[in-house]
């Protein structure tokens, strides 16, 4: 509940942050965005507005460089009114704008070995670093982004010589207006916008990266925690059962003395619900500690200036969930008490709970409760059902797997396949009444499966893409290369670069169906309405192969009036198209209808360039285009090469594959850690079951120990029995989990990432040793407890 409360509090805090700072995060009351200069009509109207109420904002990537150093940066050139909302906080609180000066984030200073007051060049202009940026009002999350931030005044932009040479400039206009004027102005400006690509939104309509994170990542973590809560519910059942089993005789006496069974049940209900309430108070305290002292762990998904609190609503939600869950679990578990016959218990005739029927109705109620909890987080019945069914199927699979495993052990015992009598005896103890071995194995196995899969996939991706960058893959990418720069670039780099022409276009229709209509029918693989990069070539890329084609072995075939098109298989799957289907493009105002003549497949995923759409050269050669180039440069040469290119061709943006992979790794690591922490909570649920199993079987275990000792078993052998039992239980559970995790990871990495599964043996060995050590420690503690319990005391109690 502490984990749930923490996440709910974070989510509420993020929502509150967005509510309060929406205009600051978006930049204005009305925001217009485009990927090229705005049309004149629109600009004329905007220019009529008060200049203090309008910000013109241009953003693009460029290389900032000094005499012998360079760095990929994200330039933001703004007009004087910036920021309209919020505050740009600088280290020295200096004035924002000075001629020919820039504000930079710390990374720029550290990477280029500069201090405030030093100079650096961007494009063709030299700037003085005026101050260091601490926080930007409209960029609350800085954990991940390509390029360190550099802010300059818009008036300095022209001198850089970069505008016009860059293919990916984001043009923004941010407008501040009164509440009354907002809608009329919005309508008026909307009327002036004729290009579909230009987006106009009010602050309320704008999506922010932080709200997407709130909705996606935090909800994902909460779903993990809900799964843990479901497992904990089983743990609670096991605790209640153990507790009531220990008080069986007392209950029989109470019943024999005339107390109604319903009153006995009620007394338990009050006890456990009170404990649940106290637990939520403790959860609140734990959550408060995490929020106060553990905020660092959430830096990747939280703005640095967010105020974290635990809202009353979150606390109430936690209480309601906790009380309902505990109430249901108590009811299901205590149904058995109603069937207790005091005489049966006191005379030890039979298992008093064996006659209780399985409370299917209440189990169904619990399942519906979990479903509602999932629904409350994602607000989609279909998705909730899918998640719920997936969880249920996973649980059933593991339960079945465990059942088969237990059956196999039983079969081996019955057939005397195991000859060592101590092992046989220890394995027989796994089937001890109330041992809950199957429940323990399936719970821990599921947890191990989730954690194992995350670890294995992460390792496979890191080993093959990040830590060891593929040897044959390019590691240096050049954007916005002009055709006439190719030869000089080749000479500069001392190698023949691979150039890819890129033509920007949108999809108009597929087989005659408009994209707007298609959007609702296609999956989530991509956004069909976005801008795409087309390319042209007359041969396959070396990293691809033909899947199918109209003419055997040929990318293109004669298609009459339509132009031939080669499509990548993953995108063909997304578009649900095949050979002979048609796709119509809008290439900068010109409509081109293409027929699919071949479908290509990538041989291996990785950092090599690829294009969804490839046309014959003659179709696109004359279209406005830019070039994208790739090269393989040694680590030692990369910075010097980047600096040289920036000096010679300021318009070209270079991307260093290795450092991007490193940056991506840092970001993914932060998210991965959070996922691992919350998944690891399910280990507690498993341990809870294990401990309650020890409690509920403690009397049986003591009795067995007494038998063994009475017949002459020495303490060393007694310890061996406990150790073999615990080790078997633990290793079965972790083994099953690890096995499924390996299979699942192999399937995912082969099919989704086209990567081989790389098993991190060091992690496997260390984890196995930790698990074994843990089981040995539990065995030692338990054995000492047994040794301390005197045989004679047991005899007296019997």
């Amino acid at each position: 509940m502490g984990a749930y409360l923490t996440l709910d509090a974070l989510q509420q805090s993020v929502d509150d942050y967005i509510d309060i700072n929406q205009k600051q995060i978006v930049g204005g009351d009305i925001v217009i965005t485009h990927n090229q200069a705005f049309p004149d009509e629109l600009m004329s109207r905007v220019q009529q507005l008060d200049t203090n109420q309008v910000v013109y904002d241009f953003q693009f990537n460029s290389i900032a460089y000094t005499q012998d150093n360079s760095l990929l940066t994200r330039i933001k050139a703004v007009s004087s009114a910036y920021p309209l909302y919020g505050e740009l906080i600088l280290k020295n609180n200096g004035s924002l704008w000075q001629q020919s000066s820039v504000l930079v984030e710390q990374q720029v200073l550290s990477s280029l070995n500069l201090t405030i007051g030093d100079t650096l060049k961007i494009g063709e202009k030299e700037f003085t670093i005026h101050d260091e940026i601490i926080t930007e009002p409209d960029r609350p999350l800085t954990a991940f982004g390509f390029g360190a931030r550099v802010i300059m005044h818009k008036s300095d932009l022209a001198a850089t010589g970069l505008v016009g040479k860059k293919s990916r400039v984001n043009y923004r206009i941010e407008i501040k207006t009164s509440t009354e004027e907002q809608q009329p102005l919005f309508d008026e400006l909307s009327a002036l916008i004729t290009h579909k690509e230009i987006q106009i939104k009010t602050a309320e309509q704008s999506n922010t990266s932080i709200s997407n994170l709130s909705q996606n990542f935090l909800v994902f973590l909460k779903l993990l925690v809900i799964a843990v809560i479901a497992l904990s519910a089983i743990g609670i059942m096991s605790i209640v059962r153990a507790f009531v089993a220990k008080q069986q005789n007392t209950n029989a006496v109470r019943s024999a003395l005339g107390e109604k069974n319903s009153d006995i049940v009620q007394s338990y209900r009050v006890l456990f619900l009170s404990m649940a309430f106290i637990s939520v108070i403790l959860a609140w305290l734990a959550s408060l500690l995490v929020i106060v002292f553990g905020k660092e762990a959430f830096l990747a998904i939280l703005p640095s200036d967010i105020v974290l609190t635990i809202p009353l609503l979150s606390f109430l939600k936690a209480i309601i969930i906790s009380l309902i869950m505990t109430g249901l679990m108590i009811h299901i578990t205590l149904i058995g008490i109603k069937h207790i016959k005091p005489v049966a218990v006191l005379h030890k005739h039979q298992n008093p709970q064996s006659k209780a029927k399985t409370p299917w109705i209440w189990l169904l109620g619990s399942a519906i409760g979990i479903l509602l909890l999932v629904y409350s987080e994602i607000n989609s019945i279909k998705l909730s059902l899918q998640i719920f069914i997936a969880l249920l199927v996973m649980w059933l699979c593991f339960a079945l797997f465990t059942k088969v495993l237990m059956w196999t052990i039983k079969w081996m015992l019955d057939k005397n396949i195991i000859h060592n009598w101590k092992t046989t005896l220890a394995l027989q103890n796994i089937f001890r009444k109330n041992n809950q071995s199957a429940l323990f194995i399936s719970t821990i196995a599921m947890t191990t499966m989730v954690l194992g899969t995350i670890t294995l996939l992460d390792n496979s991706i890191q080993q093959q893409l990040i830590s060891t960058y593929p040897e044959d893959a390019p590691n240096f990418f050049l954007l916005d290369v002009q055709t006439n720069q190719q030869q000089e670039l080749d000479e500069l780099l001392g190698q023949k670069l691979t150039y890819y022409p890129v033509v920007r276009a949108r999809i108009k229709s597929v087989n005659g169906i408009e994209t707007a209509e298609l959007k609702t029918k296609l999956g989530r693989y991509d956004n069909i309405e976005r801008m795409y990069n087309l390319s042209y070539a007359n041969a396959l890329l070396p990293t691809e192969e033909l899947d199918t084609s109209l003419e055997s072995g040929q990318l293109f075939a004669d298609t009459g009036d339509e132009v031939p098109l080669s499509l990548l298989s993953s995108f063909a799957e997304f578009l649900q198209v095949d050979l002979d289907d048609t796709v119509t493009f809008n290439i900068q105002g010109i409509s081109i209808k293409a027929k699919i003549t071949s479908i290509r497949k990538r041989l291996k995923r990785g950092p090599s360039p690829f294009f969804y759409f490839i046309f014959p050269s003659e179709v696109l050669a004359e279209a406005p285009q830019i070039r994208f180039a790739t090269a393989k440069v040694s680590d030692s040469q990369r910075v010097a090469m980047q600096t040289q290119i920036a000096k010679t061709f300021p318009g070209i943006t270079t991307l260093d594959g290795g450092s991007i992979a490193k940056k991506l790794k840092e970001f993914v690591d932060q998210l991965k850690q959070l996922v691992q922490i919350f998944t690891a909570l399910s280990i507690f649920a498993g341990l809870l079951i294990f401990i309650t199993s020890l409690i509920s079987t403690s009397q049986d275990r003591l009795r067995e120990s007494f038998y063994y000792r009475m017949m002459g078993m020495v303490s060393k052998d007694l310890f061996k029995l406990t150790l073999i039992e615990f080790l078997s239980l633990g290793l079965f559970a972790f083994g099953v989990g690890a096995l499924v995790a390996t299979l699942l990871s192999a399937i995912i990495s082969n099919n989704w990432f086209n990567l081989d599964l790389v098993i991190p043996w060091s992690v496997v060995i260390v984890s196995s040793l930790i698990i074994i050590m843990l089981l040995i420690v539990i065995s030692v503690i338990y054995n000492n407890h047994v040794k301390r319990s005197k045989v004679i005391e047991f005899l007296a109690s019997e």
Partner: protein
Amino acid sequence: MTSLLKANNLSKSYALENQTINVLKDISLSIKAAEFVAIMGKSGSGKSTLISILAGLDTTDFGQVFLDDKELTCLTEDELAVIRQTDISFVFQSFHLIPTLTVAENIGFPLKLSGSFSDEKVNSLLQKVELSHRKNSFPHQLSGGEKQRTAIARALITQPKILFADEPTGNLDEKNAQSIMQLLIDLQQEFKTALVVVTHDDSIAQLADRTIRIINGKIA
């Protein structure tokens, strides 16, 4: 005949709510090999405590217990356990069979502990206690009499020097009680094992070679 088991000046007390209860007061006794001794006394007289100390299951506050001149009262738990593997056995009122083992496995278990397991010995004992047809049954599938027969077979399979039986017929009906007691005596004589039975039942005491009566922690 020399003494098999000898107890000298045994005393035992328990603390109970600031009060000391003297359970055994200066008890001395000896038991010969193959002798059948009944220990009788009222509830709370200390007879069960006495046989627990004699068998090395409990400690004394004062006094010594010797088995074949070996002092049990100064041995460690593990040293006592090794002696119980071969020399001392028990039969209890509540049977105390291992629930996860079959009848045959329960009977053969002490042999496994001492490393001398043999199917022949187990089958022979099964025949003697007339449980061959139940050898693969689990304890919860047996009647009270069958459970006690299994317990007796388990106690005698190692041919111990001495067998302690604490109210062995306490949980059985009269008919079963008689037959179990007879079985116990028959096997005791066959194996030449000393038998110490704690009982309330005068008819059982009459079968014994001698009877020791305990009153208020002392031998009467």
